[in-house]
């Protein structure tokens, strides 16, 4: 195989790939350069490396750098002119009680939403895959494929629609939720403003986000669990492990990497949450209890015309997001991520 391909491509590509240890040593030699910089190799580099990197720099890196620079200016957003003002936007930011509250709200959401969503998703995924009858083969609950399809439904609906639907359900006077509660005889909920009361607003909003995402992560975990050989579960069962013990000691360690990825993605979503908030709490909620950074950023940029300041908020949001990702990696490593069972 290797021989025939290298014959076709004059040994350009395959020799470099099939002998990695030798390739490095030969890298600097004149022979390597002559032999390897063929048309094939150059086009390969171009298509798979240079073009993507160029795109990445043009559309990802450069806007970031630009935004970071704007955060050091007093740009209003509507003129080509701006003055460099150093770090004073950041000084202002850390004295801005509204923004700090938005940060606190986001951090709370980034803690609660991933843990609850992924906990529920894991619970359901276990039930659907290995939580069924303890007799015979390892299998999920009866009709598990039906549950799987049902639970995925909310994820099919766009986030903005979910937000609008739930804002109707939460409506104090005509909403479904208060309708059911008052019908059950709980009269204190007549006209109770779920989204308007500082005690309930943030939980009501988080519930909607969790409701919308559990199905997706459940399907993700199901796929991961299905990738684990059934023999492992059977062996655990023969050793007398119950369902809970199996999921803690077998399932989670075996799909560790999936859980980590899920944590990263849902955390990023919780740190953003702009779409859900735009539909449910466009004004930041009662006493700003549901205000998120992205909302405050948008408002500062487009309503108040302070793009420089808004960019500083964007930089802080990016730093917090990266810190969150780093934290997840660190936690995974501390709790034995190095044992690498699942790879």
């Amino acid at each position: 195989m290797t021989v025939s391909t290298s014959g076709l491509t004059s040994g350009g590509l395959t020799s470099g790939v099939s002998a990695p240890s030798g390739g490095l040593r030969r890298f600097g030699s004149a022979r390597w350069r002559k032999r390897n910089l063929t048309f094939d190799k150059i086009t390969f580099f171009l298509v798979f490396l240079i073009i993507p990197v160029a795109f990445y720099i043009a559309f990802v890196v450069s806007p970031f750098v630009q935004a970071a620079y704007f955060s050091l200016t007093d740009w209003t957003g509507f003129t080509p002119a701006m003055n460099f003002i150093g770090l004073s936007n950041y000084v202002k930011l850390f004295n801005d009680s509204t923004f700090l509250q938005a940060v606190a709200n986001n951090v709370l959401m980034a803690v609660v939403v991933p843990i609850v969503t992924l906990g529920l998703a894991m619970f359901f995924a276990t039930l659907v895959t290995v939580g069924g009858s303890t007799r015979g083969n390892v299998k999920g609950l009866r009709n598990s494929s039906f549950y799987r399809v049902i639970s995925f439904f909310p994820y099919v609906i766009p986030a903005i629609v979910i937000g609008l639907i739930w804002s109707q359900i939460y409506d104090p006077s005509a909403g479904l939720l208060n309708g059911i509660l008052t019908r059950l005889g709980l009269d204190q909920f007549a006209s109770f403003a779920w989204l308007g009361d500082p005690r309930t607003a943030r939980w009501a909003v988080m519930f909607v986000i969790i409701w919308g995402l559990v199905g997706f992560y459940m399907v993700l975990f199901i796929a991961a669990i299905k990738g684990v050989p059934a023999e492992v579960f059977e062996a655990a069962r023969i050793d007398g492990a119950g369902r809970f013990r199996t999921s803690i000691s077998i399932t989670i360690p075996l799909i560790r990497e999936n859980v980590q990825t899920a944590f990263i993605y849902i955390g990023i979503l919780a740190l953003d949450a702009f779409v859900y908030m735009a539909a449910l709490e466009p004004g930041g909620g009662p006493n700003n209890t549901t205000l998120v950074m992205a909302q405050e950023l948008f408002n500062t940029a487009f309503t108040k015309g302070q793009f420089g300041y808004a960019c500083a908020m964007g930089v802080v949001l990016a730093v917090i997001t990266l810190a969150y990702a780093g934290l997840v990696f660190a936690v995974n490593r501390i709790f034995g991520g190095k044992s690498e069972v699942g790879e």
Partner: protein
Amino acid sequence: MDINATRLGRRDFLRGSLAAAALAATGSLAACATSGTGTTSQSSAPAGQVSDTNPFGVQSGSTVDAVIFKGGYGIDYAEFAGKQVEAKQQGVTVKVTPTTKVAQTLQPRFVAGNPPDVIDNSGAGLIGINTIRDQLAELNDVIEAKNYEGTVIKDTLYEGVTNPGTFDGKFIVLNYALTVYAIWYSASLFEQNGWTVPKTYDEMLSLGEKAKAKGKYLLGWGKEAATYYQTMAISSAIKEGGDEVRLALENLKPDCWSLPPVQDVFNGLKKIIDAGYIKPGGSGTVFTAAQAQWSDAEQFVLYPSGGWIENEMKDQTKSGFKMTGAPEPTVTSNSKLPWEALHSTAGEGYIVPSQGKNVAGGKEFLRAMLSKDAAVNFAKTKLSSTIVKGTVPPDGFGSTALQSQVKMLEAAGSNIFSWNFVDLYGMNTDQLVVWNSFLSGDSDVAKLTKGLQDITDKVAKDDSIKKVQVS
């Protein structure tokens, strides 16, 4: 060992790419970046021949690029005006483009130095005038020009309509639709119950009791519109305390919210809230749903709002409702301004960027809008008056709300006032929070005052925000 090292390398790479994905997901940051900065080109002097019929010298064959906010009024009235321009100025084409988010859509064009020729800067996503006011053409020549009927435009307008568009002595925003702020009620419902419109907060309180007896609330609100009550409160305070209240608020004076007339109004409202005459749950209700509770379900009887309310609730108003407006209440019967004094300003702020390619064309478009045909067309199709006088017949095109607006304007005479500071400094979003908790009874007058004062002080102390001095 060797293999193990490569594997770790791959994993590190994957981690790195995950981190990169995390970075890419923080799109909010990248959203700040521009699409590049263009050069600033000063617009050229009028290229066409200036004459009585072409006062701004629009060049034949040029195009007028109009970007119109598409909200409650739609864009058909602007297209109508565009047709008028095309009919009067040979060879000129008007391109009307709708937008629902003015600031987001036009921000890159302002940065690139390529803004449209005329913009209807309205709606929730409008561009804060403070950020662009150096880039706007003065519009004095528009109102000094003659309209298509040959009358000087200035003489056809209602009193004081250019004030809200004048900043530091420069008239740069032409607010087209006349908006009368009032408390609205169903004339038929009031008649049926023998109720009269309250003129003071005490009368309002006693009306609340009567409404309660009929199983209705006095007032209600929606979460995005809690500051309608602020609008009413400021109006009442200005009527009570006169111009000094208005100036203190406009100029963001320390303790402006603690002035006695303002406090009296807040206390008056608080009594109504404490008596339970406000429909609870407003802070969790979408404002249009709340408004339907008033106009359709008649669960509460008074609603403070602007004159757009009729058009906004057209499909959700009970038949025979007879929507009617009355001036906002005063605190006492011997207030500095009479009860009939009116908070009226004009909305739909039209602006002409001075860097536009066809500034003359933009002004010509405004001239068409201010001429009789377009103004009457607007009043008739939108059931709302423009700033042009005499376009609404006595029957108000069959609308009781429009009739009452014209009546209130006539009764107010020259006692018409307005203010800008809330929109000018973009305070509404922050104020909504404070008002929502005040109206739901979670806070008291002291907390409300402190909350509003903090918002005002924050703007006042921020040197990066340009202030407009009002006198």
